[in-house]
């Protein structure tokens, strides 16, 4: 074992852990349930956890992330056993099939597991020392090489990369969930997710529901981590700061996300749940234990979002370079501020709403139980107060990327800089007053419908400002189309479709027909691809050389774009088409007489084509990391400060501070300058 490469050793240990964990779980399940169940939840959970733990043990040894996962497993079991013991002493049901522990034990165990992950990882060590009055150094050097990416590094660039890699892993995971249920949908009738299908104590129909629900939430967490990664990596560079305002909090914000992801995955295994990503009671008050793991996972992930946003706002307010007044900040910084204001405040309410349902399940508290005088609609208000503004959290940084990159590849000033800066804030602000448009059919008070309709339609105004700016910027520009620019243009087209399909949902009369149809699914996939996925890839292709000193392969990049874009357009337009014709969302089967079979088959093929394009991207990423064409200088001929310094940048970024002396986007104006670096 000693002579192997770490990755080979890790993969062997992964295989061994999966099998060993499966065996252990199977045995435990046999002990409790009294019969052999090869698809038992416990077997799946132990297999996954021990597999992942051994994988990281093989990769980095018993420290940082490996120790964290071992501690999380121990903490989960410890917490669950603690509650189980108390229940046993009280004479309550303690150990029972099918999930070994009962629900309160799993919830408590999940929580202690997260805390133990953080303790085991070492990301809170400094804070514990500080609380005990022990001096800790302001900053510390990272472990050399790739080990730093598993450790609680304080460097915002390392943390940014950690975020982005985690986001990509979750993107692949959530995408593969979609492929599974998309395959089931390819023709009418149930093909493989039938009632005979058994996995993790779910039959095929339940498993469909779980996959569909988790696809939503895993993608949302992936997007949140993706934008956090971009903001973490870019904002300090763009404003000339040496790091984020609170580096320890920054590391904490990232490292609280992986245990949350583990909890979300555990929800799939522990019986799943069938509410969709929204988790509405009363259904969510009755769903299996998986529901609780889902709520807990989202709750913990929410803290990552909140604390990251806090850090970002403090960084931008306090650490800008000399001369960078508000209206000379890059557009991406404006967008990050707008997004962070929402994430900082509104996220608390999804946390609260999920927490209330958790307590309703655990303690019988009747917040949303009409039989106890509770109000299920209240949940929807609390939930959407976050979850609508959240979509602006997802798209605003992406739209910022579009505005950021467009002038670089058009060689013209960005049209209407101030308007576009303010439009991000306007979207964020208006976004707080539109939530009930998700509830037109919910049975809420009818007089709320019209005000929420108008406030929602109002969002189109600042969004329109962005489009006018982009079109005017493109107008008569010297357009070049390397891969990042292709994705920028793709983002504009796709987001336009997402935007145009929005007003019909905002208008009460049409929404009553469109609510809960595939039209909605098509609409939000358009906005999220246009607002996040395309700009995210544009940003990765664009700043990859900054992070690594090498550029990504152009040919593979273009192949990625030209495969993904048409496939995606087919997918979203097809979804909208069958939605208008009456295809309901969130169901595993449909009537063949509706005539959707052909369209669904095309959608499934398009889905797999998108997956293939993502695979090409990942291959490109891995290859370019080692063998990409070296690109240390100002590859894109940008005015932005980070490109005036060599790639990759060292810890604490710039050798000498810079001063802002001009406008950020005056491309093509001779003699104009944005930043000036101090002489050494």
């Amino acid at each position, binding site marked *: 074992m000693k002579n192997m490469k770490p990755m080979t050793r890790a993969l062997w240990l992964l295989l061994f852990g999966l099998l060993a964990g499966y065996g252990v779980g199977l045995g435990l399940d046999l002990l409790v349930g009294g019969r052999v169940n090869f698809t038992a939840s416990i077997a799946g959970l132990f297999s996954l956890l021990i597999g992942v733990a051994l994988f990281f043990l093989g990769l980095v040894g018993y420290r940082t992330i490996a120790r964290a996962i071992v501690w999380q497993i121990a903490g989960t079991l410890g917490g669950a056993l603690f509650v189980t013991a108390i229940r046993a002493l009280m004479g309550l049901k303690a150990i029972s099939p099918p999930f070994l522990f009962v629900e309160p034990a799993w919830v408590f165990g999940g929580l202690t597991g997260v805390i133990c992950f953080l303790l085991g990882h070492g990301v809170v060590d400094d804070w514990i020392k500080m*609380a*005990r*009055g022990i001096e800790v150094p302001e900053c510390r050097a990272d472990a050399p090489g790739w080990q730093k990416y598993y450790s609680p590094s304080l460097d915002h660039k390392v943390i940014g990369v950690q975020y982005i890699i985690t986001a990509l892993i979750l993107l692949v995971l959530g995408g593969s969930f979609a492929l599974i249920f998309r395959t089931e949908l390819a023709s009418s009738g149930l093909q493989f997710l039938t009632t005979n299908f058994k996995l993790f104590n779910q039959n095929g129909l339940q498993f469909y529901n779980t996959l569909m629900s988790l696809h939503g939430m895993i993608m949302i967490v992936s997007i949140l981590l993706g934008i956090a990664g971009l903001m973490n990596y870019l904002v300090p560079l763009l404003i000339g700061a040496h790091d984020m*305002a*609170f580096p320890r*909090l920054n590391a904490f914000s990232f490292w609280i996300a992986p245990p949350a992801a583990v909890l979300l995955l555990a929800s799939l295994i522990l019986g799943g749940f069938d509410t969709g990503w929204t988790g509405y009671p009363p259904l969510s008050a009755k769903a299996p234990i998986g529901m609780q793991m889902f709520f807990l996972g989202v709750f913990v992930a929410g803290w990552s979002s*909140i604390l990251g946003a*806090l*850090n970002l*706002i*403090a960084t931008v*307010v*306090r*650490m800008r370079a000399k001369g960078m007044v508000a209206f000379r900040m890059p557009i991406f910084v404006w967008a990050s501020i707008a997004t962070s204001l929402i994430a*900082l*405040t*509104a*996220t*608390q*309410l999804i*946390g*609260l*709403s999920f927490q*209330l349902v958790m*307590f*309703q399940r655990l*303690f*019988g*508290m*009747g*917040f949303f*139980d009409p039989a*106890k*005088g*509770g*109000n299920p609609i*209240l949940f929807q*208000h*609390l939930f959407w*107060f976050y979850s609508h503004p959240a979509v602006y959290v997802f798209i605003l940084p992406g739209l910022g990327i579009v505005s950021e990159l467009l002038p670089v590849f058009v060689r013209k000033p960005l049209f209407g800089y101030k308007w576009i800066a303010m439009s991000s804030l306007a979207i964020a602000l208006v976004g707080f007053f539109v939530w009930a448009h998700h509830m037109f059919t919910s049975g809420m008070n009818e007089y709320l419908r019209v005000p929420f309709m108008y406030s929602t339609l109002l969002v189109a105004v600042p969004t329109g400002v962005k489009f006018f700016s982009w079109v005017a910027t493109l107008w008569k520009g010297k357009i070049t189309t390397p891969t990042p620019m292709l994705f920028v243009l793709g983002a504009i087209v796709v987001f336009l479709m997402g935007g145009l399909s929005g007003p019909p949902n905002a208008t009460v009369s049409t929404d009553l027909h469109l609510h809960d149809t595939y039209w909605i699914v098509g609409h939000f996939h358009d906005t999220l691809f246009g607002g996040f996925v395309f700009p995210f890839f544009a940003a990765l292709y664009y700043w990859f050389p900054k992070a690594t000193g090498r550029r990504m392969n152009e040919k593979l990049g273009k192949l990625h774009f030209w495969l993904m874009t048409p496939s995606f357009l087919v997918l979203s337009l097809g979804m909208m088409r069958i939605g208008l014709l009456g295809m309901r969302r969130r169901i595993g089967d449909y009537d063949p007489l509706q005539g959707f079979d052909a369209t669904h088959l095309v959608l499934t093929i398009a889905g797999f084509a998108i997956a293939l394009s993502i695979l090409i991207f990942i291959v490109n990423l891995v290859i370019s990391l080692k063998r990409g064409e070296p690109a240390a200088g100002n590859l894109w001929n940008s005015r932005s400060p980070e490109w005036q310094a060599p790639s990759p940048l060292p810890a604490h970024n710039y050798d000498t501070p810079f001063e802002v002396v001009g406008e950020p986007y005056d491309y093509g104006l001779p003699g104009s300058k944005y930043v000036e670096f101090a002489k050494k």
Partner: protein
Amino acid sequence: MTHTQDKSSALAQGLTVFIFLAVLTALEFGIALLVNSVVLLALVALVKAGLVVYYYMRIYKLNQEEHEEGRDSYAYKTGTSRLGLWLFLLSDSFVFGGLLISRFNLLGLTRPHLNQFLGLAVTSVLLISSFFMNRAETSIAHGDQKGFLNGTLITMILGVFFVAGVVGLEWQLAQVEQIFASGDSAGAIFYMMTGMHAFHVLTGVILLFTVWNKGRKGLYSAGKHWGVEAATVYWHFVDVVWIFFYPALYLIGALR
């Protein structure tokens, strides 16, 4: 007004604010007894919260300029930390705001049958703790280690009393009144609001303990005491939350 005061006038200011808060609390109780006007109660609560936020939490410090001392100075970094703390409190206040809205959604203008004497008692305990917290911070800002340690210790003890009063007594007495967590939604929201608040008081006590412990080792001085300030502001924030929760649970509306 000037914010650089000598110690005795700073302590006097803390006392004056405390007296105002006490009178307003009594007024609040009187309003509930005599006219039970929601608008008046909300107004009094807002005035109380405003007094605490300005004079005890010193929100105006956010506006201070520390630029002349350079970005690596302790003063500038403290300013950044202060902004971070206030952003956290802004975020946290959305939880409590959500709970308040849920309370009015579920109960409307009715309130559960709670022990009024106990409610007033725990409210007073928290109010007095804020007074001592203010004394502790004022003391360390003027280099008085002993006053700071004593003030923190008293605050901590009062905080423990508050939690004991709410969780240990009030929750038991409420069950005598047939208010159960698993009963109707009124019970649920009562336990949720008091429980969430008590959890915050408890974290505040833990924060105060670490500050007190570090203070015993002499790690704070008149010039460097950001830890004390942070714990103080957090403690007062928890007090502000109770300023709204107390009338919402005990005073507003008719008995159910």
